[in-house]
């Protein structure tokens, strides 16, 4: 057994933070929280606190990265040194580089990059407080920041993870479950079409368990999608035009 692993992750049919198997942590999303950025999003997901900002489409620097036929999308995932238990040294590590890549690719699917040749769309994601599941939370926030920036997209991308903990398939793993559970399956979807644009897995699942976890994650992501839309509606208004 790993050091620090609780004896049980599920007690009397409940998870250690009191949630049911198919229950999300509380999520709060706010669009447009930064003045300088073209679009931004603040997101609390359980104890995760994340800010995402979108700049662009704008001129590409360095210029040789520009593509004649489309814009380039660059998402950068970063963790603040004080966002985790033991201080994280500033600067990119292998994990952040990989996360940045999969988040970028998940969003490239929905952004109409062809409309902005020779431009760059940059999305910067800063994790200010981490509690497991920052990948899905970051993708969710990044997608709201892009929408807030007015970047044309076919839909938002909504994300949520499912996994296996003490033999049970559960939704939205928090830190302890993430560290000591049997599997973690983050999923990002395009809700309107049902396409899956982010998918990773870490652990062990049977065919049957995988199907169950995937369906659960998709169900969770659809709930997240509603919260994303509600945040944007709060800023831009529904029937009556909102604050602008």
């Amino acid at each position: 057994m790993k050091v620090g692993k609780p004896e049980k992750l599920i007690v009397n049919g409940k998870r250690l933070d009191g949630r049911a198997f198919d229950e999300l942590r509380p999520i709060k999303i706010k669009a447009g929280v930064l003045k300088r950025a073209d679009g931004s999003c603040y997101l609390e997901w359980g104890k995760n606190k994340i800010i995402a900002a979108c700049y662009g489409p704008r001129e590409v620097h360095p210029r040789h990265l520009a593509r004649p036929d489309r814009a380039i999308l660059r998402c950068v995932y970063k963790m603040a040194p004080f966002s985790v238990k033991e201080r994280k040294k500033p600067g990119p590590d292998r994990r952040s580089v990989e996360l940045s890549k999969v988040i970028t690719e998940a969003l490239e699917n929905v952004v109409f990059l062809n409309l902005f040749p020779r431009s760059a769309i940059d999305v910067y994601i800063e994790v200010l407080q981490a509690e497991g599941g920052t990948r899905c939370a970051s993708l969710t926030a990044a997608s709201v920041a892009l929408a807030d920036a007015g970047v044309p997209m076919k839909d938002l991308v909504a994300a949520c993870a499912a996994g296996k903990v003490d033999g049970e398939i559960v939704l939205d793993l928090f830190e302890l479950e993430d560290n000591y559970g049997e599997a973690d399956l983050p999923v990002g979807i395009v809700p309107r079409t049902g396409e899956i644009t982010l998918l990773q897995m870490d652990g062990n699942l049977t065919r049957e368990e995988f199907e169950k976890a995937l369906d659960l994650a998709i169900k969770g992501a659809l709930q997240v999608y509603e919260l994303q839309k509600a945040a944007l509606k709060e800023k831009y208004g529904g029937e009556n035009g909102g604050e602008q």
Partner: protein
Amino acid sequence: MESNSIVASIKKDYILTVLETGKRVDGREFDEYREIEIIRGYAQRAEGSALVRIGNTQVLAGVKLSLATPFPDTPDEGILSTTAELVPLASPSFDIGPPDERAIELSRVVDRALRESNALDLEKLCIVPNEKVWLVNVDIYILDYDGNLFDASCLAAISALLDARFPKLEDDKIIYEEKTNEALPIKNKPVEVTFAKIGKYTVVDPNLEEEEVMDARITFGITQENELCALQKGLRGSFTREEILDLFDKAIEKAKELRRYLE
């Protein structure tokens, strides 16, 4: 000239015409700060933290504690380390990558105020002389850049230090999940006050528009005894001896205002 600086040079003509009328572009008096707000305990995985807003500028500072071997020349003192990151989400002019000269200057000027005012009693951070001391990392994170990072960062750093509580120490291991009620040994609460010189005018707490056109900048670090603990003049422009002495007096008055936010 880069395009932003060309636009700034045109804006400067406008900003100067407004300054001539005795006002600033955002309607403030020359010696007036923007609205200030400090939220302590913002980042809960840090041992201490504070989000500071000065107008639209937002700075988050987090304090992390860990154990370290003391420096050989100060075997019975803890270690204070201050870094600042101009994270790219805060401004189109901040890039990803290692800290540039602006970030390094910023962290050093804040560090100087904390260190030279003896904000932290480093001797009280010694656990076993020569062997084990507390390492206090203050990480300053710029989230939204609308000018005057020095004052905002210093306020964030000292507020985060005031907010910090030691984690539990068990068999020489830190239990981060359990914070004690014990605060850090704070001896002084320095603040920084920055002025921008635009043409012949000098204004406190420059916003971004003013910073983009300023000729010179000066930052005073002021202790709670109203003494000077850090000083940094920046940019190509200059100040006269008389201007500096006059600004020092003004800085002391402004420091009193800022310190009220630390109570």
